[in-house]
């Protein structure tokens, strides 16, 4: 007999088991370089990340850390820029530069059979760059063009101003780039920055994928001989400090949408309240079914999307609500965002909404550890803060057990509306 389907009723939802998070295997080279190996995946493919504490926080003026990083592949003691890119391309490797607020590095995806050549090349670009003038000139011209184009976008205008106002115009987390910065970068500045921060002591290697047996030996061979350097004594920690003004309007003639950025500095993932704050943030604007999405997009049609994010930096953390809305409803959209925050401070979250968020977030954590690329990123996301997988286990526990009252309390403590910065560009 044929089974009669009851489509009105959802199939029973079973509890999801995130299981154990794969641990990285770690060791140190003779000279102290830390290496982490994360075994995962079916394909003969690995991702290697070389990371340095060489982000914007270390720079004395804007663009130095990003430019140093981008120039690594623009000429070395033994290779021209053209030779470096030809070599990576020939090996079918996909190199990616990154220079963020705290760290900078270089990530390569490659097939296992090319790994030795890739390591040799990585050693060359990471430790023997020469920052040639001609390539630097072209790079800065290119970057200026891109900057000019990006400054046409309301979302960039708003975000840049947001970071400037929450972290301060003279702090590397907050300072804004302007056109004249692009002509003020010299090869000597980059060499100096590179010499100070791209050192073995300041570096770690994170490898994930189907790790070839000989990899450990190869890393030792290509990086183990780098001599120890006396670490540069860091100056006093630069404390970010937000501006006194909290509301900024940036006019962009001709814009048909306004970009809104609302938020503030807050705790980072080292703080015990952070996992709970992650739950709060998800409810507010951290997933497709969030309150902000429902209100601004699905009920009012003000926007294509609105998101709230909670991010960690080494010296701070920040929460930011970001959206682009129809210009005519800008003020209304801001009001609705504030209303949603206030609601979270005053009304306990309902049981069914909380169940959805608990399960969605648990699913997200499983996705964060699915596959070699995701695993490496999630590893680094806690390692950068001196934490380990216990952070994720604490987060899972909090997701499972947080109560509505605690959420209300967190919203009152951390999302005080009179402390929010409000930036509108458009």
């Amino acid at each position: 007999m044929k089974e009669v389907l009851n489509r009105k009723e959802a199939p029973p939802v079973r509890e999801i088991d995130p299981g154990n998070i794969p641990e990285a295997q770690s060791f140190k080279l003779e000279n102290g370089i830390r290496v982490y190996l994360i075994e995962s995946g079916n394909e003969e493919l690995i991702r290697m990340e070389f990371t340095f504490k060489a982000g914007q926080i270390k720079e004395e003026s804007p663009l130095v850390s990003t430019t140093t990083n981008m120039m690594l592949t623009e000429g070395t003691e033994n290779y021209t820029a053209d030779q470096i890119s030809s070599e990576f391309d020939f090996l079918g490797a996909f190199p990616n530069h990154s220079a963020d607020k705290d760290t900078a590095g270089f990530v390569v995806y490659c097939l296992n059979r090319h790994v030795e050549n890739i390591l040799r090349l990585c050693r060359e670009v990471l430790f023997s760059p020469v920052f040639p003038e001609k390539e630097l000139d072209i790079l800065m011209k290119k970057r200026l063009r891109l900057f000019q184009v990006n400054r046409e976008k309301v979302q960039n205008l708003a975000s840049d101003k947001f970071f400037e106002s929450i972290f301060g115009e003279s702090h590397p987390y907050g300072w804004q780039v302007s056109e004249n910065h692009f002509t003020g970068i010299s090869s000597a500045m980059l060499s100096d920055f590179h010499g100070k921060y791209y050192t073995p002591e300041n570096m770690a290697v994170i490898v994930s994928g189907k790790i070839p047996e000989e990899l450990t030996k190869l890393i030792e061979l290509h990086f183990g001989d780098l001599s120890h350097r006396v670490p540069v004594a860091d100056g006093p920690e630069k404390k970010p400090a937000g501006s006194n003004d909290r509301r900024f309007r940036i006019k962009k003639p001709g814009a048909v949408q306004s970009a809104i950025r609302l938020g503030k500095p807050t705790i980072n993932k080292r703080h015990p309240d952070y996992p709970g704050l992650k739950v709060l943030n998800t409810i507010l604007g951290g997933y497709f079914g969030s309150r902000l999405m429902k209100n601004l997009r699905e009920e009012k049609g003000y926007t294509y999307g609105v998101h709230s994010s909670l991010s960690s930096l080494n010296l701070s953390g920040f929460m930011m609500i970001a959206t682009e809305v129809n210009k005519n409803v800008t003020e209304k959209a801001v009001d609705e965002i504030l209303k949603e925050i206030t609601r979270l401070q005053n009304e306990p979250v309902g049981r069914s909404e909380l169940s959805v968020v608990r399960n969605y977030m648990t699913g997200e954590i499983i996705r964060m550890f699915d596959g070699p690329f995701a695993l490496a990123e999630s590893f680094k996301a806690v390692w950068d803060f001196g934490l380990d997988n216990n952070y994720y286990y604490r987060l899972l526990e909090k997701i499972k057990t947080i109560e509505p009252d605690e959420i209300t309390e967190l919203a009152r403590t951390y999302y005080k509306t009179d402390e929010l910065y409000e930036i509108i560009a458009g």
Partner: protein
Amino acid sequence: MIKFEVFTLDNGLKVLVNQDLSTPLVAMNILYNVGSKDEDPDRTGLAHLFEHLMFSGSVNIPEFDPPLQLAGGENNAFTNNDITNYYLTLPYENLETGFWLESDRMLGLNLTEGNIEIQKSVVVEEFKQRYINQPYGDVMHLLRPLTYKIHPYKWPPIGVDISHIATASLEHVSDFFFSHYAPNNAILSLSGKITPDEAYRLSNKWFGPVEKRELRKKNITPEPEQTEERKLSVLRNVPVTALYKAWHVCKRTDEDFYTLDLLTDILAGGESGRLYSKLVREKGLFSEVNAWLTSDIDPGLVIFQGRLMNNVDIEVAEQSLNEIIDELKHKEPETKEMEKVKNRYESATVISNSGILNKAMNLAYYELLGNPELINSEIENFCRVSPEMVKESAIKYLNPSNCSTVYYISERGEK
């Protein structure tokens, strides 16, 4: 080597399954063989608007997202000229929720004036955010109609104009659903922690009862051959002048496709690609360059895009680009260069097949092309391309008379 099984339900739904035990998740992909090329010229953007409406609740389920999130899932979708593609990932424990949700919205939608109005405003904001309020956002609205005179590829999936979306009615939308959304016009693919038996049982249980539908015949007039160079110059309030060129090429399943794909990579693959190395690094004419093959089901395009450096004359820049193109017609690429692009292609394929979601999407797409085995064998087709074939294809396709050019000039006083 990606192993998979294929079966077809009585109602015509094709199902493909790849079991991957390295993950506790399952990816589910549903491809509907309908895209913006199936729209009427005076009612464009409908396929994409429809994609939004697919999330507004179905016959038996008031909202799509909350039950999926409750099951720990995540989802999204995209619409292009050829297809509308929906995908989700779920922990395997709650896999059945995916079948329940997707089969119900294949059965029918809960279309109301109210949710259509809301999604229309959302899409209008998307149009503004991506195509109006962005520098260069309108370029495909210029290049496509210059390139295609007849074929519906002449409009982008978002639609010709906001007014087409703003005036769409319940009737238009509902008619569109029944002419295109049907088990016999869809491909379901699964990858992850699922056995072929389980896939068979659940597909039959949930999708089996959805009835076959009468489809609207695809009645697309092929684009006539272009015989004359086409040019368009526009002045725009952008800081940097840009150059765009497009050449008509073959369809996705043509044997020349692989040669063109390789040729495009010779031009624009990585920083050692000819375009970047000559036009950016050596001559400093452009600040960025790119070229790609649109990979459309019907005959598509090779598109070039570049932004100029300060004080560079656009005609001088274009001339330099043309010299690079001409070189392809006169000289076969060296073996080493051929080997390079093949190595890159191999890595890219391995990377692209390394996650369950990609595998599910790729399987469905290859099935649409008529041969899911391509997920494993396409690389061989690519490796068979010879230097002579590259030269021949350049001669055959990259001609001025087959080319459309847009000068996107900054009106801020620069050259």
